């Protein structure tokens, strides 16, 4: 039963991806289809309550193994070794500086806005 519903869950995930892809194609949005699909699914979870129970298991199954899925793309780096060697300095600089800048800006921005008071409930 669990596996049958997982298959149904996978079907629903693929349908949301399809919906996202179709919308980005149709409206010529510069957004990746699956990202729009994620957004649609997030909204749908509030509207259709049983959706969560159906998707919880297959989603966590995929997410726990997600890093396996980007190995094929990552291995493509073998075709770019010359380029990396030539641009090692900019790549390393971006890696270090931009990551640290993002960390500081994000935590500072989070800090400057006063949190909503939770006084009422």
């Amino acid at each position: 039963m669990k596996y049958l519903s997982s298959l149904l869950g996978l079907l629903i995930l693929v349908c949301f991806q399809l919906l996202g892809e179709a919308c980005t194609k149709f409206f010529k949005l510069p957004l990746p289809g699956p990202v729009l699909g994620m957004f649609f699914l997030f909204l749908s979870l509030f509207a259709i309550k049983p959706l969560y129970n159906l998707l919880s298991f297959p989603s966590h199954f995929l997410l726990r193994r997600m890093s396996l899925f980007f190995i094929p793309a990552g291995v493509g780096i073998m075709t770019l070794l010359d380029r990396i060697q030539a641009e090692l300095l900019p790549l390393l600089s971006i890696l270090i500086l931009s990551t640290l800048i993002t960390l500081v800006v994000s935590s500072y921005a989070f800090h400057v806005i006063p949190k909503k008071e939770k006084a009422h409930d």
Partner: protein
Amino acid sequence: MIEWSSLFWLALTILLFQVFTWIFHYFKRFPLLQPVALSIALLVVCLLMFKVEYNTYFEGSRLLHYLLGPSTVALAIPLYEKRAKLFSLWKPLAFSLFMGSLFGILSALAVGKIFGASLLVLKSVAAKSVTTPIAIGITDKVGGDISLTAVMVIATGIFGAIAGLTFLRYFPFKDEEAQGFAMGMACHGIGTARCFQESVELGTFAGLAIGLNGLTTALLLPLIFRLLGL
């Protein structure tokens, strides 16, 4: 039909990832032993050694690549599970999200420009702080190289996981909400895993940033590229 050699590489990919995952857990999730990074490195070495074309490799492992789409959609589930935190702190979250995403993109482009990066590199690394499947989607849209993106995103995650929290200690924003969220903003899932080693609160806020930054950067990045005329 898939050729047997393609199928062999698919099997080897899954096997290596599993073995490196065991090693990673054995060494208490030390960030430098990231299974995905070690798997990619070893696979590249093997492919080069045996003079196998990347196309042959990708032919078989494409099966795994296709699961990136549904996995991206599935990111809505953890976001939904944390909706209470999302709504109670929506103001600081929204501001941090916007600023972090904007500066993440702009700082990558600026630093790259200063150090003389080519246009292809700029296009491929601008989304480096976003979770890999989304970063790949974004890079594909702006015409960068998705392999460079995948490697850069993973490297960013590893660097952030090792140095991020220590670096943040030198700044006066000590609350776990801000630090956790910043870690998720800058170094996605790998940074989040590192946060969970410290505390659940830190990890939860980092996890919140993964999907949100993916969505925000997917919206902002093409816009910025258009404005800058890249």
